[in-house]
C-alpha cells in the first residue's frame, strides 16, 4: 500500500507511515491466516465447523500480528529518531525530547553519527540565519509579525548598515519621496541627532542604546504633529544594525506644550516688575549719588546686578521654551563682536566688580564683522561671563578675547576658577545639567549653556569648552564671518536657514520672539 499524500509537516510523517506499514502487515497476516485455513480444509484434516481449526488459525494470526507489529516498531525506530531530530532542528513543536546521540542505544551504530550530522548541520545553519523555535514556518511568522507591528501604536524602523530603511511599520514617521526613497521624519534638537549618534557608534561601539525624548515629526503648526520618545538600539554588523522604536507620547507631551506656553506667559509677566525695579534702581542711584555712603553704593550695585541677572535668566527660560517648541530662530545681520559686547558691557563690569572678579575684555576693533542676532548673541556672552564669575574664586581673573580663525571669529571666555573633570564637560550642554558639586555650591538653572549652544548653533557657529579641574575653564564661541555667509543670508531673507545644515530647515518661518 503506497503512501499517496505528502504530509505537511515532518512530525505528521512518522505516525502515518507507521499506520500504513502496520496496516499492510496486518492485512498480510489476515491473508496468510486465511490461506492456512484453506490449506487445512482442503487437506481434509478439519471440517469447516471444527473449533480446533479456527483456534489454530486464530493463534497463528495473533502470533503473526504480534510479531509483525513488533517488527514494524523495531524497523521504524531509527527512522523515527532521525525524523525526531529533524523535527527539533526545523523548529516544529513537539512533546518528545530530541534523541540524544550519546544515548547508549545509539552507541557504536551508524545512527549516532547520523544524528550528530543532523545536529551539526543545523547549528551551522543557525549561525547564518536565525532558525529558532518559532511556531509556524518563517514566512508565516513574517506575515504575523508585520500584521502585529502594523496594529501597534509604537513605530518600528529598522536601518541597515548603510542607514537605509529596511523596514518600517505603519505608524512609523517615515516619508517616501518620488524616487521611492524612504526617510525618517524626525526633528532632532540641534546637533543631538540620530545620525550624529550613529556616527559615534560606528566609530566606537559594538552595541549601544540611546533614548531621545519629545522628538516631533513635524513643525508645531503642521497638522497631525506627533511627539515621540525614540529608543534606538545599535548592534554593529548585523543585518538589522539599527532598530528604532518610537513611542507615541503626543497625548502626554502636548499637555506639556501648553505648559511651555504658560512659561512664556509667566516670563512675560515677570518682566513688568523687573522693568520697574531696574529702572528705579538706575534712577535712584543717580539721584541719591551725593547722599549715599560708600557701602550704600555697593548695596545699590548688588541690587542692580541681581535685577539684571534675573532679567537674563528670564530670557534664558523664554528662549528655552521657544527652542524646545522649535520656535527659536534668529535674524542674522552684519554685526561686530565689539558692538554686541558693548550692549552688555556695563552690566558685566558691574557684575564682575560687585563680586570681586577682575574682568578684562580684549576685543580688537578691527575684527571682521560676523553674522549675528544682536540680542541673542549678547545673551550668550552674558551667560558665559556670568558662569565664569559663578565658577571662579574671589579676586579671580576672567579674560574675554576675540580672534579670527579661518572663516570664523572666535570669542573666548576664560576663567581661572574651579574647572571641571572630563565627565562633567561631556554633559555640560545638556538641559538642566548641573554637576554634582555645582549643585551644592552654586545656584543656577542649568539652562544657560543649553540655550547658549542652541543660539550659537542657530548662527551656524559652534561652542566648545576646555577645562581642567582646579585650574579653570575656557569657553569658545565660533561664529561665521559675515562676508563668508552674506550671499546665503541674502538668499534666505536674513534668516539663518541657509546656514543651518543639520536643522532640516525647521527653523523656517519660526522665530525667536523678542518682546
Amino acid at each position, binding site marked *: 500500500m503506497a503512501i499517496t499524500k505528502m504530509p505537511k509537516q515532518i512530525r505528521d510523517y512518522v505516525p502515518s507511515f507507521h499506520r500504513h506499514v502496520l496496516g499492510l502487515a496486518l492485512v498480510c497476516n489476515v491473508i496468510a491466516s486465511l490461506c492456512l485455513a484453506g490449506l487445512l480444509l482442503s487437506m481434509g484434516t478439519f471440517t469447516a465447523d471444527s473449533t480446533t481449526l479456527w483456534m489454530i488459525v486464530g493463534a497463528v494470526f495473533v502470533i503473526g500480528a504480534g510479531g509483525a507489529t513488533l517488527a514494524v516498531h523495531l524497523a521504524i525506530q531509527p527512522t523515527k529518531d532521525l525524523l525526531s531530530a529533524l523535527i527539533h532542528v526545523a523548529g516544529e513543536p513537539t512533546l518528545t525530547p530530541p534523541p540524544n546521540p550519546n544515548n547508549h542505544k545509539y552507541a557504536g551504530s551508524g545512527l549516532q553519527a547520523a544524528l550528530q550530522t543532523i545536529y551539526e548541520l543545523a547549528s551551522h545553519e543557525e549561525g547564518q540565519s536565525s532558525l529558532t523555535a518559532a511556531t509556524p514556518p518563517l514566512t508565516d511568522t513574517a506575515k504575523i509579525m508585520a500584521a502585529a507591528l502594523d496594529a501597534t501604536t509604537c513605530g518600528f524602523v529598522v536601518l541597515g548598515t548603510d542607514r537605509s530603511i529596511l523596514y518600517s511599520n505603519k505608524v512609523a514617521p517615515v516619508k517616501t519621496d518620488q524616487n521611492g526613497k524612504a526617510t525618517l521624519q524626525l526633528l532632532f534638537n540641534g546637533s543631538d541627532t540620530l545620525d550624529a549618534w550613529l556616527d559615534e557608534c560606528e566609530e566606537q561601539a559594538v552595541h549601544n542604546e540611546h533614548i531621545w525624548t519629545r522628538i516631533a515629526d513635524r513643525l508645531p503648526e503642521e497638522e497631525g504633529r506627533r511627539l515621540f520618545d525614540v529608543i534606538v538600539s545599535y548592534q554593529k554588523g548585523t543585518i538589522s544594525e539599527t532598530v528604532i522604536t518610537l513611542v507615541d507620547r503626543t497625548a502626554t507631551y502636548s499637555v506639556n506644550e501648553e505648559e511651555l506656553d504658560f512659561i*512664556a506667559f509667566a*516670563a*512675560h509677566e515677570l*518682566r*513688568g516688575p*523687573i*522693568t*520697574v525695579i*531696574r*529702572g*528705579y*534702581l*538706575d*534712577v535712584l542711584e*543717580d539721584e541719591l549719588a551725593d547722599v549715599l555712603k560708600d557701602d550704600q553704593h555697593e548695596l545699590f550695585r548688588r541690587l542692580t546686578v541681581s535685577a539684571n541677572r534675573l*532679567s537674563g535668566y*528670564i530670557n534664558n527660560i*523664554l528662549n528655552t521654551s521657544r527652542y524646545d517648541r522649535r520656535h527659536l*530662530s534668529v535674524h542674522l545681520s552684519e554685526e561686530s563682536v565689539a558692538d554686541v559686547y558693548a550692549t552688555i558691557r556695563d552690566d558685566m563690569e558691574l557684575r564682575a566688580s560687585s563680586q570681586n572678579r577682575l574682568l578684562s575684555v580684549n576685543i580688537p576693533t578691527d575684527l571682521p564683522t560676523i553674522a549675528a542676532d544682536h*540680542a541673542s548673541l549678547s545673551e550668550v556672552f552674558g551667560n558665559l561671563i556670568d558662569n565664569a564669575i559663578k565658577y571662579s574664586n574671589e579676586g579671580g581673573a576672567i579674560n574675554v578675547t576675540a580672534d579670527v580663525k579661518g572663516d570664523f571669529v572666535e570669542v573666548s571666555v576664560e576663567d581661572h576658577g574651579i574647572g571641571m573633570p572630563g565627565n562633567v564637560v561631556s554633559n555640560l550642554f545638556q538641559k538642566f545639567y548641573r554637576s554634582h558639586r555645582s549643585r551644592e555650591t552654586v545656584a543656577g538653572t542649568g539652562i544657560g549653556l543649553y540655550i547658549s549652544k542652541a543660539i550659537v548653533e542657530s548662527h551656524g557657529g559652534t561652542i566648545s569648552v576646555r577645562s581642567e579641574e582646579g585650574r579653570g575653564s575656557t569657553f569658545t564661541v565660533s561664529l561665521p564671518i559675515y562676508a563668508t555667509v552674506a550671499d546665503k543670508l541674502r538668499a534666505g531673507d536674513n534668516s539663518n536657514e541657509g546656514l543651518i545644515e543639520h536643522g532640516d530647515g525647521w527653523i523656517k518661518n*519660526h*522665530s525667536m*520672539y*523678542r*518682546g
Partner: protein
Amino acid sequence: MAIKTILCIEDDRFIGEMYVRSLKKAGYDVDWVVDGNDGLVTARNKPYDLMLLDVMLPERRGTEILDALKGGAEDLIPHTKVIVLTNFEQDDASRIAMQKHADAYLIKAEITPKRLIEVIHQLDTL
C-alpha cells in the same frame, strides 16, 4: 531736528511714571496717555517729535495705533519718530511689521530710563 516733545503711550502706571519722570528731568516735554484710543487721538492732534509706544494697551493695541498712523497710503505723523517699548513676546510677523514703521524696538525689561535717554540721543543724531 532735535527731539523735544515726547508722547508716551503706556498703561502700566509704575512704568509710565518712571519714564515720564526721567524724561522730564532730562529736559523733555512729555505727555503721557494710558490707553490706545487716547494715544491715537493725541498723536494725531499734536505733532510730537517722538512717540514711545507700548504694545499691550487697553482699547487699542500698539500694533493697531502704529498701523493707523503709518500703515496707510499717507504717513499721518511724518515728523514723529517712534520707539516701540514692550515686554510682550510678539510673534515674528507682527514684530517685523512694527519694526518697519518704528525707529527702534526695545524690550522694556532690558531698558532703564538712562538707556532710553541714550537711545533718544542716538535717534537725534540720525
